[in-house]
């Protein structure tokens, strides 16, 4: 049995210990917002937060996160950065097919937590890990700036 805290809820899962966290999240816990894209940590569609850090769940054995705190796209809206990013994504109509967007959003939130006012080069550096076949990159960049600005204004008030 492996113990996890997913989106604030504690749970125990009985799976092969080498099962990637991605499939535990998707199949055992039924949270399908986190996506499978490559299985090799190449595309970032599976990005989730483990103890606040963005990781690739497709190559993370569930046994390695025993006892840790996991946040997925379904739970991220409760955070300040999560809310700002989701709102900015809607303002800029970022998603097209939408499949990669959970990964994009989770990576963008981790970036904003680290650096609330990232420059283009930092955005590019972090976000280049997440592939988007539809080509929403320009809008992602724009939306991250929008969210950063919104958060900064929120802080002043």
């Amino acid at each position, binding site marked *: 049995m492996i113990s996890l805290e997913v989106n604030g809820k504690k749970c125990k899962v009985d799976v092969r210990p080498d099962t990637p966290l991605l499939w535990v999240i998707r199949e055992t816990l039924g949270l399908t917002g986190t996506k*499978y*894209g490559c299985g090799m940590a190449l595309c970032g569609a599976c990005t989730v937060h483990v103890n606040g850090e963005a990781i690739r769940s497709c190559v993370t054995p569930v046994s390695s996160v025993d006892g840790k705190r996991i946040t997925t796209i379904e739970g991220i809206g409760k955070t300040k950065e999560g809310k700002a990013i989701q709102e900015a*994504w809607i303002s800029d109509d970022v998603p097209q*097919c939408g499949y990669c967007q959970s990964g994009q959003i989770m990576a963008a939130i981790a970036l904003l937590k680290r650096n609330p006012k990232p420059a283009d080069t930092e955005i590019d550096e972090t*976000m280049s890990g997440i592939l*988007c076949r539809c080509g929403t990159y*320009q809008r992602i*960049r724009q939306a991250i700036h929008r969210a950063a600005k919104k958060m900064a204004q929120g802080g002043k008030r």
Partner: protein
Amino acid sequence: MKEIVHLSRRSFLKNGILVGGGLTLGFYLPLRGSLSGASSPSGVTFMPNAFIRIGTDDKVTIIVNKSEMGQGVYTSLPMLVAEELEVDWTKIRVEAAPVDPAYNHTQWGVQGTGGSTSVWSEWDRLRKAGATARVMLINAAAEIWKVDPANCRAEKGLIIQRGTGQRISYGKLVEKASQMKVPKDVPLKEPKGFKVIGKSMKRLDTPEKTNGKAIFGLDVKVPGMLTAMVVRPPVFGGNVKSFDAKKAKAIPGVKEVVQIDSGVAVIAEGFWSASKGREALEIIWDEGTVAKLSTEGMREEFTRLSKTPGAVAKKKGDPQQAISKAAKQLHAEYEVPFLAHACMEPLNCLVDLHDDRCEIWTGTQLQTLDRDAAARVAGLKPEEVRIHTTFLGGGFGRRGNPQSDFVAEAVSVAKVIKKPVKVIWTREDDMKGGYYRPMWYDRIAAGLDDQGDLIAWQHTIVGQSILSGTPFDPKKDVDPASVEGAEDIPYEIPNIFVDLHSPKIGIPVQWWRSVGHSHTAFVVESFLDEVAHSTGKDPYEFRRQLLSKHPRHFGVLKLAAEKFGWGKPLPKGHGRGIAVHESFGSFVAQVAEVSVNPSGKVHVHKVVCAIDCGRIVNPDTIKAQMESGIVFGLSAVLYGEITLESGRVSQSNFHDYPLLRMNEMPVVDVAIVSSEEKSGGVGEPGVPPIAPAVCNAIFAAMGKRIRRLPIRIEELIKS
């Protein structure tokens, strides 16, 4: 895909009558449970036609017959309905249409999404659907109020009586409106009265695509569902000789290992057990003839073919003679590789098969064909098969497979296991699974007279036919999808000759975003640039002089050049390139600004794009699709290449089939021409011009002409 028009005239006519004659009330629709659609406690809804359902809660459900794969049809098509229905945009919900002739493509006679046709092909039908519903709602209110309907108008989901200002919401009219006669020939709005069409309406699917709620095929669950992976032959056309499932079956969670037509299926409790089971499976293959093929061998064969006469696609004047007598001749060979669609969501299909029915959940672009294929495999009648179209995690043509490969295979797995089963393709399966954009080899020549005028153009194309052998086979020597964009070049040239070789080599090929244009635009616009430079003329000016009879081509060319600042100084080492191309009823020009570093790495700094797609429905969607097409095309220019060695595909995942990443994203600036022309497509037309624009810019920057894609860094290393 305009060549498909005649294929199923019967269903087209049937459909035409349905629409023209008006749909009767209570029209049967095999609707699936709506997630968030109109609902009525009493169960009464107003459903004036196959596309609209209004509930007593005032919610308006628009049933969309096109698959949402990112191109924005779940927004643009509801806009067409909403314009005439006069409905509050925030009350609109979208539901995927089931498979039914009522939802057939207005031009194809089958239900499907592709060819950048969705908006223009539904332009009349959906506006009429909205207008019809509005008139019935007005008539219902007028009857309740006992006034002349002419004294009532519709606005934001309300019918308002003139004079008294009395108002009633659509939801309260549901029952009465359902008793109204369906009016014929309802007049439609004049464009100057449009309130929705032409505005950048927010995408209706964005919120659920930012919180994990959007359901793609891979996300669907049904009770008792198993997961299957199929090991397919390592070589196209191969077969299973024998297999040993003992070790695979010993893996915990593996339920069954069975041979099916396409390979061996490992059926397990979930993804990980299926994948472990598959690793343990031992198969001996009969590889077949394709095992002898390699990309290098194919290149040699294509080169040889290009020197022999092909099937004539276009002949104007006497090009052979004109070239032989020309004061100056130019010759070149161009090549592009096989390309995978590489949708972010790998292929998948969930099937729940029973003795008397079959339920399928998948992201498909060709519902009718998939349903019929599923019925054939299952031994059921087509009407006993239901397809639930989910969101598509990218399509780009791959999810509209004329052989229904991923659907038919999943049904065959379900037939064996007799339990709900989802077949999941891994990224590697998806990458190696075929149905690629064909590899092309082009031999091209031009003749100039002593004034430097282009007098002859000769273009030989070699590559597999996409349509041959499919239900859309034109059964002609020339597959129009092979020569589109080449046999119809807009430039004023007195002598033109285009011919085609369509070798049959057993690699499955398919339409890939922009189809034939994905290669012809590269060849034509690059070679025209070569011709321009050979005369010493500016490439923009050279095109302008040859486009006198094509104002829409010239319009976008001029707009892109102006917006970029064509002719203004550029930073040292930068070059700019221009290209213009018509596809799917739209005209797109792009100017790319590029630099190449000493190690040969290409940096695309900026792309200015101008599009004339006729009447504009959603400007922001048009911009998004241009950005998207440019990125899609850039991946192909810089990286995309599927190669074969001993019949085996060499690439497997994103490390050896890279896609453009955020750090390589150029600034993209899109301008849209305002137009009253019939709408054209927007999903594909942004792709074709980017390859030639970038390669022409590389030539401008460093004098190196790129004639083979993807760009090879070694060709650009500065000595």
